[in-house]
C-alpha cells in the first residue's frame, strides 16, 4: 500500500489510511451495505451455487438440505424449532431464496 496511491477499492472496505497509526480498523455497518448483501447479483449468484450444492448433496430431501446448510454456514445443527420453521419457508419459497436469507444472517456474516 502506497500513501497517495489509488485505493478506492480498499477505502470502500474500510482499509485504514497508511499515513496514520491505526490500532483498530474501523468497521462499517450501514443500510447501504445491507442492501448490497441482499440485492447484489453477486450475492444472489452465490446463493444459487449454494442451493445447487445442497440439491446435489442431499437430493430431494428438504430437511437434510437445511441441516447441511446449517453445518456449512453455521457449523452447527439446527434446533427442532429452527428446522420446522425453515422447512415451512423452503416449502413455500425456492431454495435459492432460502440460501440468500442464510447468507445475509447475522450468524453467518458476523463473527463476534
Amino acid at each position, binding site marked *: 500500500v502506497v500513501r497517495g496511491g489509488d485505493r478506492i477499492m*480498499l*477505502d470502500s472496505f474500510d*482499509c485504514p489510511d497508511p499515513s*496514520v497509526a491505526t*490500532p483498530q480498523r474501523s468497521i*462499517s455497518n450501514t443500510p447501504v451495505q445491507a*442492501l448490497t448483501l441482499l*440485492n447484489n447479483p453477486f450475492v444472489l449468484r452465490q446463493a444459487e451455487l449454494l442451493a445447487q450444492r445442497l440439491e446435489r448433496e442431499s437430493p430431494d430431501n428438504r430437511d437434510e438440505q437445511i441441516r447441511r446448510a446449517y453445518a456449512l454456514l453455521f457449523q452447527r445443527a439446527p434446533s427442532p424449532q429452527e428446522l420446522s*420453521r425453515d422447512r415451512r419457508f423452503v416449502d413455500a419459497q425456492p431454495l435459492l431464496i432460502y440460501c440468500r436469507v442464510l447468507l445475509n444472517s447475522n*450468524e453467518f456474516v458476523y463473527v463476534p
Partner: protein
Amino acid sequence: MPTRREILWEFGQGLTGIALAQLAATTGAEAATRSPHFASKAKRVILISLPGGISAIDTFDYKPDLEKHHGKETRGANTITPFFGKRGTVMKSPWRFQQYGQSGKWVSDLLPNLAQRVDDLTFIHSMVSRSNAHGPAIFQMSTGFVFQGFPSTGSWISYGLGSENENLPSFVVLPDPRGVPPCGAANWGNGFLPAAHQGVVLGGESQPIADLNPPRSVSPVEQSATYDLLSEMNEEHLKANTGDDALAARIKAYSLAARMQVSAPEVTSITSESESTKTAYGLDDPVTRPYGYNCLLARRLIERGVRCVQLFNGGHFGAPRVNWDGHEDLMANHTKNARILDKPTAALLADLKQRGLMSDTLVAITTEFGRLPISEGLGEGGRDHNPEGFTWILAGAGLKPGFSFGATDELGYKAVQPTTIYDFHATILHLLGLDHTRLTYYHNGLNRRLTDVHGHVLREILS
C-alpha cells in the same frame, strides 16, 4: 431493549446524561429524535468538505502584500518549511481580487458565484490544523482527532440530536462523483458511538443507492418472505448473543434498508424540480452536473429531516489529481476544481435562503489545510500544504452574516490568533444547541468528546 454496553454507559453518565439517555432506551441503533441541551435556531447541518486543501490566499483571504513581496525569499522567523521540502519564493495570487456585497468582502475571480453570496457567509480566517499531511489533517477536519477511529462530526451530531425521519438515515454522505476522499469511510465513521450514527453513503445521480432493489428474478413475495425470516433469525441470534452493539445495528440496518427501498426513490429523483432550479445548480453542464446533483440532493435530504449531510468536493489524492491538492500547477488545479465547486455550491446557498431553510440550517465549508504563500520550488507554479493559517466558512442559523473573523499574517502564512478545529467543532455543536463539554460518550474509561479536552465556542461570530 438496551444492550449491556448501553446500560453501563447510561450508568456511567449519571444525571448529566439525562438529555441523551433516551438513546439508551432505543437499543443504541435507532436514531430517534432527541432534545438538544439548550434552545437553538439551527436544527440540521450541511458539511461541505474540500479534500486536498483549497488555498485561502487565492480565494477569500486577500493578501495584497503577496504582490509586493512576489519573488522574494522568506527568511529568519518567517522561514517556511513546506511538506515536500521544496522551498520556493513568495508567489502572488494568479487571480484578481475584487470587493463584493454590502460587506465589501475581497474575493478572487476564481469563485465568481460564491463571491455573490459573501453577505450570507461567516469567514474564519485563522484556522490551524495539527498536521500538514492529508491523512491526519482530514481526520482532524472530520473527527477532531489526527488518528483514525474516532466518531465523525456528523456521527456526533446524529448521536446528539437523532433523526427526524425514520425512513432515512440521520447522517448521509455524498462523496465527490470523482471518487471517495482520502481515508474514505473513516471520514464518516461512527468510531465508538453506536453504529446507527455512521454516515450512510449515497452514490451519484446514475445510481444514488446501489442495489436498492432486488434483481428482477426475485419476486416481491420472495423479497418480503426474505425480510421476515431474516429478521426472525437475527432476533433469535441476538437473544443468544446479548451485549453486542454490532448485531443490533445490523438488524436495524436491514430494517432501515427495507424502509429506504420505499422512501429513497422519492428523495433521489429530481424530476419534480423546476428547470430553473436544475440550471441554477449547473445540471445543464456536464462539468458541474455530478457535483451539482449532489448539492441539490443535499437540499432534498435536509428538507426531509436528514440531520446531517456531508458533501465532498474533491476525491482521493494521487495522480491524476481529482482534488484541491495543487502542488504542481495551482492555476490549472484550482481553476478546474473551482469550475465544479463554485456554481452549484452558490446555488445551494441561494436555494436554502430562498426557501427559508437557512433559518434553521447550518452550512460549513471546510478543507484539511490551506496552501503556502511561497511557490513549491524555485520558479514553480504550485503551492504546498499550509496548516498554520487557513480559511473555513460557516453560513446559516445563529451566525453573523457577511462577517469575517480572525486573520493571518501579511503573507497569509500563519494565523495571528489561531482558531483550532476544536473551537470550530465546539461552535458548530453550540449552534445546534449542544454543549460540546456535555455531548459525551463513555468509552475506554473516558467520557469522550468531539473536542477531546479542548475547544472554545467562537462567541464573536454568533448573532
